[in-house]
């Protein structure tokens, strides 16, 4: 142990530290300054823990405390507060750089160190200075914008007040600062791991090292005797179903009889400290009987393959879609292309590792179990826990959530934390490592697809056939819904008169899929859009003109037979045309040597809402004595900007300043059901429910001739009203896949410009141009931010990212996008009002993933003549394809 004296944010402090302690420990554990985040398992990869030491940025997770004697440390807490922010914090908020906010304190510290030495950095200098700070939400565009703006503030060229929009300019179509962005920029927004829980025990899970095995015995006796250990729980201690049921009950909270994939939990140890819990977890002895592993769908589908889940076939869902007679139409088509495609398993990589805390709020048989986590459907999370634990009285609270992209629909750390808190009647924290977070969270399903697409002599599409196999992995999560959504959006933006499809969902002993931004269609749309360009080339037509020719028109039908009443897709294609022609022209003049350039285009149409009918959102509003409005809804906001949407719509509809709108959205005791923050449904569903609630309030005020709270109360009228939005859709027929799955959709087209090094296989994205028709823009920065971040994520899917269970352990291995891989973007927003959208709007976040991978693959093909059909297009695959191998 060594004594060190540091000055932290201007205050001298002394610590007595062991050699294994790092600066991050001193900040987060000793000082409880939790603005500095931890994400990458202390590998110094992600930059979330960036602070300034002696004027230079350091990653505090790898900076040994014992070497810091005399150091001057500045953390995010040392810059500013929400009431008195630093100019850099102001710049991040006003530039729209703050989405989930988890990376932002580290980004701001890196920006400060840069601006301290260079107050006017060029964009390339900013990218270089911040290249070791990771962000999953923004695609880095607005972060770079924020540093540029901060420089302008610091140089005195402009002030925040001159940049800051005000309510006086209206509330719709304006980027008013998001209600939560400043607390995130100042590091005082509490993510789950930041929440202090007096006397909390720490939990460590005992996880299976095997992918498929029977549990013969579990011996916890040695672990229970370890220092600091309070106890160990196994499946026998769970009083409820012990299943985390999203759709089917195939996932144990704690495995009882079997384990289905490496990392499955078999016991949970709680101790006074995390170190003690981890040490004791290693002493739990589990005897396994190994079973045959089925790591690929073809192995699980082979005749005689053992069932992974008793009583459930390995092919756990098989759904068809039939529209017209596709085989007959293909047989008589002038041109047909046929190809197979595949997409890979991907970890969504939100920066915040999985985390939960739980405690009993009161005593007795009816004590309330409070669970704080990062769920995006808080009422569903509560219900899943109620069933699994056999404990009814639960309140689920959403802490600030550090990104999600789908994986926070499922219960992860909350289950064990809640079970342990209930069993030991003590508060419990369960903060997972990044590696463990990867083991326990859902992934993007890998899909293999065989397609045939035909057209007549004039280039009109005749038929589309697709057979696809979606690897479910060990558990179903929402796999049924993902497969269904592929069918619901199968024909993309096009009029295809004949369709034949079959999708299979197959269990394996592998990481399991779940909700992942776009949730199915990014995979199947890759095949459709790739085939569209292949067919255009075969017909000798321009790929963009071919798409325009075949775009669905009002009155025509999608692959589900739904007659469409609005379809602004052709407008998106028209809007991309000048950019496409410019890019083609530039490309044609580029000398095609070792480095080649290409241009690709792809489109998509994305249905708003869930996979089945019955989507419903309730939002309540309450008039406050000061004339303000409180909005109640179980509306998670893991970074997309749902807080802005609710606040701005409420201010607009009520005609009150935004500051007078208060949101209550994170707590199951105080909110109505509003559904999940997924399927790009929140703006559409909750925005509509909010308008409906406000309409009821305004009607009541009108009837009472009241213009204030006092007058409404005096008239004996309630001050609280609840609005509901129900989506009027129908389920798909199980034999034909026909039905009306969506009321509304979001549309768009993307243009990729790439450069390929034919000797290394490296693909560099020069620019992505995205046209998106969002109906009505409520908050321009939020819309742009979703598109920029989505393009970055889509590019990762196209070119780099792949998760291998048990092998991929960190961000370097996932090939996390960085400032170095970021690229220029141009966003073109179209606003064709949707008849049923709130103020004409629809959501946008998930759609962006649909066209990106195909546009990039098209551009690679344009440059090299080689079509990549299997993602990701890593250099080795591109090189192999150029050499005539598997593409």
């Amino acid at each position, binding site marked *: 142990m060594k004594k060190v004296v540091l000055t932290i944010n201007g205050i001298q402090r002394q610590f007595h530290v062991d050699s294994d302690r790092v600066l991050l420990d001193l900040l987060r554990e000793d000082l409880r300054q939790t603005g500095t985040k931890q994400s990458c398992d202390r590998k110094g990869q992600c930059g979330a823990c960036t602070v300034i030491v002696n004027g230079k940025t350091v990653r505090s997770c790898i900076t040994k405390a014992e070497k810091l004697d005399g150091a001057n440390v500045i953390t995010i807490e040392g810059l500013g507060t929400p009431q008195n922010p630093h100019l850099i914090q102001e710049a991040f908020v006003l530039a729209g750089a703050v989405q989930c906010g988890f990376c932002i304190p580290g980004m701001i510290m890196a920006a400060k160190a840069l601006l301290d030495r260079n107050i006017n950095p060029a964009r390339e200098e900013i990218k270089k200075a911040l290249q070791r700070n990771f962000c999953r939400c923004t695609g880095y565009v607005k972060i770079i914008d924020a540093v540029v703006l901060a420089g302008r503030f610091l140089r005195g060229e402009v002030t925040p007040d001159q940049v800051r929009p005000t309510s006086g300019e209206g509330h719709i179509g304006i980027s008013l600062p998001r209600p939560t962005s400043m607390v995130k920029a100042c590091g005082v927004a509490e993510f789950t791991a930041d929440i202090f829980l007096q006397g909390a025990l720490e939990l460590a899970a005992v996880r299976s090292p095997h992918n498929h095995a029977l549990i013969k015995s579990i011996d916890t006796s040695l672990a229970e005797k370890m220092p600091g250990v309070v106890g160990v729980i196994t499946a026998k201690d769970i009083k409820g179903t012990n299943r985390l*049921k*999203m*759709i089917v009950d195939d996932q144990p909270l704690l495995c009882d009889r079997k384990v289905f994939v490496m990392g499955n939990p078999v016991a949970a140890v709680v101790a006074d400290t995390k170190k003690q819990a981890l040490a004791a977890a290693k002493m739990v002895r589990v005897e396994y009987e190994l079973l045959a592993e089925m790591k690929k769908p073809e192995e699980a589908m082979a005749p005689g393959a053992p069932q992974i889940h008793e009583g459930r076939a390995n092919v756990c869902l098989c*759904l068809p879609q039939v529209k017209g007679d596709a085989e007959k139409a293909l047989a008589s088509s002038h041109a047909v292309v046929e190809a197979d495609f595949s997409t890979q398993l991907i970890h969504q990589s939100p920066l915040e590792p999985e985390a939960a805390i739980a405690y009993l709020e009161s005593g007795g*048989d*009816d004590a*309330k179990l409070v669970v704080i986590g990062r769920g995006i*459907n808080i*009422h*569903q999370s*509560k*219900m*899943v826990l*109620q*069933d699994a634990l056999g404990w*009814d*009285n639960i309140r689920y609270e959403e802490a600030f959530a550090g990104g999600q992209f789908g994986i926070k*629909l499922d219960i992860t750390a909350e289950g064990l934390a809640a079970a342990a808190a209930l069993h030991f009647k003590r508060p419990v924290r369960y903060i997972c490592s990044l590696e463990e977070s990867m083991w326990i969270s859902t992934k993007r399903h890998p899909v293999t697809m065989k397609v045939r697409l035909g057209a007549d002599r004039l280039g009109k599409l005749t038929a589309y056939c697709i057979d696809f196999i979606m690897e479910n992995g060990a558990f179903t999560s*929402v796999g*049924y*819904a*993902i497969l*269904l*959504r592929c*069918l619901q959006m199968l024909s993309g933006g096009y009029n295809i008169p004949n369709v034949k499809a079959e999708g299979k969902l197959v269990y394996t002993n592998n990481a399991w899929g779940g*909700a992942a931004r776009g*949730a199915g269609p990014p995979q199947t749309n890759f095949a459709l859009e790739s085939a569209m360009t292949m067919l255009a080339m075969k017909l000798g037509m321009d790929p963009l003109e071919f798409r325009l020719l075949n775009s669905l028109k009002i009155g025509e039908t999608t692959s589900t037979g739904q007659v469409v009443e609005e379809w602004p897709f052709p407008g998106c294609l028209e809007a991309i045309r000048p950019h496409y022609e410019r890019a083609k022209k530039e490309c044609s003049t580029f000398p095609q040597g070792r480095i080649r350039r290409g241009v690709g285009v792809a489109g998509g149409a994305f249905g708003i809402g*869930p*996979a*089945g*009918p*019955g*989507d*419903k959102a*309730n*939002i*309540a509003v309450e008039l406050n004595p000061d004339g303000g409005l409180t909005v*109640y809804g*179980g509306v998670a906001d893991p970074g997309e900007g749902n807080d802005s949407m609710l606040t701005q719509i409420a201010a607009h509809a009520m005609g009150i300043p935004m500051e007078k709108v208060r949101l209550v959205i994170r707590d*199951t*005791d105080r*909110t*109505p*059901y*509003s*559904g*999940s923050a*997924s*399927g790009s449904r929140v703006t559409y569903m909750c925005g509509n429910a909010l308008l409906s609630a406000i309409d009821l309030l305004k009607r009541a005020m009108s009837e009472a001739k009241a213009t204030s709270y006092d007058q409404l109360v005096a008239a004996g009228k309630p001050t609280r009203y*609840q609005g*509901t939005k*129900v989506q009027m859709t129908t*389920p*798909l*027929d*199980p034999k034909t*896949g026909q*039905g009306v799955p969506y009321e509304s959709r979001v549309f768009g087209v993307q243009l990729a410009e790439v450069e390929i090094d034919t000797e290394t296989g490296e693909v560099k994205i020069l620019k992505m141009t995205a046209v998106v028709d969002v109906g009505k823009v409520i908050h321009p920065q939020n819309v742009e931010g979703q598109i920029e971040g989505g393009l970055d994520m889509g590019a990762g899917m196209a070119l780099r990212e792949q998760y291998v269970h048990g092998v991929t352990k960190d961000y370097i291995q996932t090939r996390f996008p960085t400032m170095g891989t970021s690229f220029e973007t141009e966003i073109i927003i179209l606003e064709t009002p949707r008849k049923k959208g709130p103020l004409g709007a629809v959501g946008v976040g998930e759609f962006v993933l649909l066209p990106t991978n195909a546009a990039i693959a098209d551009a690679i093909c344009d440059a090299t003549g080689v079509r990549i059909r299997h993602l990701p297009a890593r250099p080795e695959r591109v090189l192999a394809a150029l050499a005539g191998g598997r593409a």
Partner: protein
Amino acid sequence: MEEGLATGQDQVYASGHRERSIAGRKILFDASGFLLNADDWSEELAEILARENGMGPLDDSRWKVVHFLRDYYRRCGRPPSNHELKEGTGFSLMILESLFPGGVRGTARLLAGLPNPRTCL
């Protein structure tokens, strides 16, 4: 299902939803048996669902719970907590759970036509 309660053949959809012909009406349920459209609820339907769940005609106590659940949901947009249910009905938890074979969450909410929060994507 008790014979004679439902007529016609159920239609099961790809999403697991089930359309049933009950008392001359086509009514859609989710995969867990919860009513999809709140407007389809009636006391007659509640009685039919109760019989399907092995219960006899709903007595005053059970109706009290069902109506409280519906009223609470209409006002608050979510089911009541145990505490609120106890206060609202005057029944102890033990009695509440004993009134319905699947308990309050499993059966009473279903009979009251409350939606299932288990929505997917």
